[in-house]
């Protein structure tokens, strides 16, 4: 992480990536296939739009009775022997997980994909306390080797070509150069299988926490989460409190929707529900299961009824995939755990509005995110609300005066009539400063032509027309 201010870092990286044609090619290729598959799957639904409404309703019910459902979930899963720990923030969660590791003499951890774990920097915290951590999701494994954060909440290594993956495998794993995704995947498979069998602890996230039966539900394609939660003797699941859903049956709707919106699949390869450690009569499964229920500012979003529905998010990543800003600036430019529109909406709540308000301005307000969201979160309006809240919290004097001046000019027709020809005179001299540091429009003219003022106004045109 750089020490730059978030907005400076965003502007710098966004500018660089936008001009990177190689990056653009990779992203367009990856997403092109996604759009086709997603539309095919959506078309199989009797009614995708009504399914979205119902999914939105399920999450609304859960989030607006969060206390009731969390208690129900915690009681039910504890009854089958899981230990539930409630953490206010990342530090509390990490300290507890490190304590579990220490008390059980854990030396190595196999981790399946968890964005909540990324959010609280769980991996580095464990490594600092002397535990080896291996990411088992292939994409996460690749970015871990490259020592960079995930690029996308669902497709962590989407920005890399096979050559780059081969290069990092050669450098870090000492493997032979490989040039097909198949060979590269098999190299990772070989490394990982030994880790599953020998790791002392498996760490996972959860896509849903089911209140009525007390289970977590994990969605994946690779099987790494199933292995990480079945073989090691301890399983720790880190669960954001907003992951709750009321009933097990709700998964019959949400699992197909998550897969369709997120990856254009009818359902992902493995959807696993876990309601406790190894039970009496079972032959395998972890001896201990720990659930970490994490707040980490989620209750702050909850306290804002206007944006509360951003807690409905099921982290499918669909809003990233359709966002023109994401496609141009890429996932790393955001500098956040959650990228794209949903990241721009919630990061100001998680990390502070004034430092992260710039993300809400990086939007064309086209509404593609809102339209695609499988649980109907009103994303692009939330970006506007963040802009409003940021200005109300910390008004900018020059902006205030600018609008005052504009207001003054526009409400006085006589003055406006004089000002227009003045502007035209200004245009004659404008080329002298255009694209220089003195250019008052320099941010605009960097990538665009400044349009010339009309030679006469509509009012003048109308007056002349009538005279003829």
């Amino acid at each position: 992480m750089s020490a730059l201010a978030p907005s400076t870092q965003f502007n710098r990286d966004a500018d660089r990536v936008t001009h990177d044609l190689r990056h653009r090619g990779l992203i367009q290729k990856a997403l092109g296939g996604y759009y086709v598959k997603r539309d095919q799957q959506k078309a199989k639904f009797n009614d995708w739009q009504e399914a979205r409404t119902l999914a939105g309703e399920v999450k609304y019910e859960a989030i607006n009775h969060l206390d009731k459902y969390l208690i129900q979930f915690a009681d039910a899963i504890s009854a089958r022997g899981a230990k539930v720990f409630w953490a206010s923030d990342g530090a509390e969660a990490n300290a507890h997980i490190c304590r579990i590791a220490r008390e059980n003499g854990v030396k190595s951890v196999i981790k399946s994909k968890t964005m909540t774990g990324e959010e609280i920097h769980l991996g580095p915290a464990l490594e600092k306390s002397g535990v080896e951590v291996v990411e088992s999701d292939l994409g996460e494994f690749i970015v871990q080797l490259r020592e960079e954060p995930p690029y996308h909440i669902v497709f962590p290594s989407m920005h890399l070509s096979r050559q780059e993956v081969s290069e990092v495998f050669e450098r870090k794993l000492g493997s032979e150069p490989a040039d097909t995704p198949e060979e590269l995947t098999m190299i990772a498979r070989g490394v990982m299988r030994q880790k599953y069998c020998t790791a002392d602890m498996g760490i996972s996230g959860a896509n849903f926490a089911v209140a009525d039966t007390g289970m977590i539900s994990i969605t994946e394609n690779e099987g790494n989460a199933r292995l990480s939660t079945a073989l090691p003797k301890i399983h720790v699941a880190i669960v954001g409190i907003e992951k709750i859903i009321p009933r097990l049956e709700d998964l019959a709707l949400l699992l197909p929707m998550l897969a369709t919106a997120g990856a254009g699949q009818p359902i992902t390869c493995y959807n696993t529900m876990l309601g406790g450690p190894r039970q009496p009569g079972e032959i395998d499964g972890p001896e201990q299961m720990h659930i970490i229920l994490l707040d980490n500012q989620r209750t702050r979003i909850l306290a804002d009824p206007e944006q509360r529905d951003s807690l409905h998010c099921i982290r499918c990543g669909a809003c990233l995939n359709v966002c023109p800003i994401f496609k141009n600036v890429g996932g790393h430019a955001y500098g956040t755990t959650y990228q794209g529109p949903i990241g721009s909406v919630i990061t100001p709540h998680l990390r502070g509005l004034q430092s992260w308000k710039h993300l809400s301005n990086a939007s064309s307000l086209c509404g593609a995110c809102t339209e695609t969201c499988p649980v109907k979160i009103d994303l692009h309006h939330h970006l506007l609300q963040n802009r409003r809240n940021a200005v109300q919290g910390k008004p900018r004097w020059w902006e205030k005066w600018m609008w005052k001046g504009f207001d003054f000019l526009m409400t006085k027709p006589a003055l406006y009539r004089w000002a227009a020809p003045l502007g035209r005179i200004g245009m004659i001299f404008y080329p002298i400063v255009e694209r220089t540091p003195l250019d008052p429009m320099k941010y605009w003219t960097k990538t665009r032509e400044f349009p010339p003022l009309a030679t006469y106004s509509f009012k003048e045109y109308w007056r002349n027309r009538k005279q003829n």
Partner: protein
Amino acid sequence: MQIEPITDSRDKILARIREALQTTAPKRHLHAPAGVATRGHGADDTVHGTPQEWLPPVPATQDEKLALFEKNSADLKTRVVLCANDAAVTAALTELASAENWKRVASHRFPVGHAAILASNLSVTWVDEGYAVGELESADAGITGCECLVSQTGSILVTASSSGGRALSVLPPHHVVIAHRSQVVGDLSEALAVAKRSNGGTAPAFLSFITGPSRTGDIERILVLGAHGPKQLTVLVVG
């Protein structure tokens, strides 16, 4: 060693939640443009209907359900073999064993497949009384039963009791499922009901919907089978 008591933030978090929920949030997801009639919800702000109305449709008869299961499985690279009887299952297993040169498989005792597995003369590691991880990892295939097969998605629902524990269906490189034709159900919600029923009315502690062999698209979004779990998935349907 003195064990320090573990205190967490349960009460603080619940207090924050309750305070936040004092204000009601708008039901924004229900908003439809004015004058547009939507089928899903009425003026009383409640959603009518069940997921079944909106999800991909499921046919009515058992034969059609099996046909849809076969079609969805083929799309996701699961191989489905219809077997008339136990002898046909045995033949299918023997054929797979010689085609892939299996030395040893891992399995458990389950009604639909047990006789056929015994008759196939495969060398079997039985996991019913527990197993060593290394032994399971080095098996050429895992042969399991299941709770049911899901027509709508082409999924197989496994539980610890129906499928030999939590790892047998995911660790060996080839997963073979033996199921009876009558085990095909319509959708996920029916499948969950089946699992609850066979566990005495409550959901078992481990449930997994398996849909196709393990896969990844993490390198250039190109599909590769066998990322971590089985590279192949075969379903033998008896009856």
